[in-house]
């Protein structure tokens, strides 16, 4: 099993450009999450999904959109990138939330917005 994979690993954008980050998991997990991590900081939840076709806002959703058309995939979109969105983005999945909610994380996508 590959676990959680993220595409791409690195990306450089210019202000105003758009892009989509792809997260895929092969563990048949219901829950999927997108986080961002800024230097020296913890992870902040952007959006999450509790199942195929559902999405919800996390702590810092502004400037991002997400879609979960297939259970195994969770896409994070930036419609008009800003320098403040320079960060490392992590995707995670879990079978449940709360008890026994071990999250499995991907390797991250390092995004720089110039």
């Amino acid at each position, binding site marked *: 099993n590959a676990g*959680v994979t993220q595409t791409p690993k690195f990306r450089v954008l210019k202000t105003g450009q758009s892009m989509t980050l792809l997260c895929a998991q092969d563990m048949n997990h219901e*829950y999927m*999450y997108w*986080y961002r991590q800024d230097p*020296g*900081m*913890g*992870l*902040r*939840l952007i959006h*999450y999904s*509790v199942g195929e076709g559902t999405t*919800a*806002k*996390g*702590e810092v959703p502004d400037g991002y959109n997400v879609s979960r058309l297939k259970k195994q995939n969770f896409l994070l979109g930036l419609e008009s990138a800003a320098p403040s969105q320079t960060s490392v983005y*992590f995707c*995670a999945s879990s079978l449940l*939330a*709360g*008890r*026994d*909610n*071990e*999250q*499995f*994380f*991907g*390797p*991250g996508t390092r995004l720089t917005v110039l």
Partner: protein
Amino acid sequence: LAKTTQPISMDSYEGQEVNITCSHNNIATNDYITWYQQFPSQGPRFIIQGYKTKVTNEVASLFIPADRKSSTLSLPRVSLSDTAVYYCLSTSGSARQLTFGSGTQLTVLP
């Protein structure tokens, strides 16, 4: 949101036992305490989870007192490879309330 507070950093020497304490004064009845480990340039990795008293697995122990206002992650006989950031989370059934905080940077010295 239940907020957790941890020391910013800790140093230890190889072979020692390390205890990292997390404060969660406003923990809700349904919240579990979960610890993650993160190495540079990698995503966090689950270590252990508990509700109360003591939980032990192959890598760590988690102690949660009766009032549940704090918890202690115990790493026995640390090695250099245990140098990482450790995050304490209080997690309920709501995915919306996941907050990692800044974590504790553990540095293991030779």
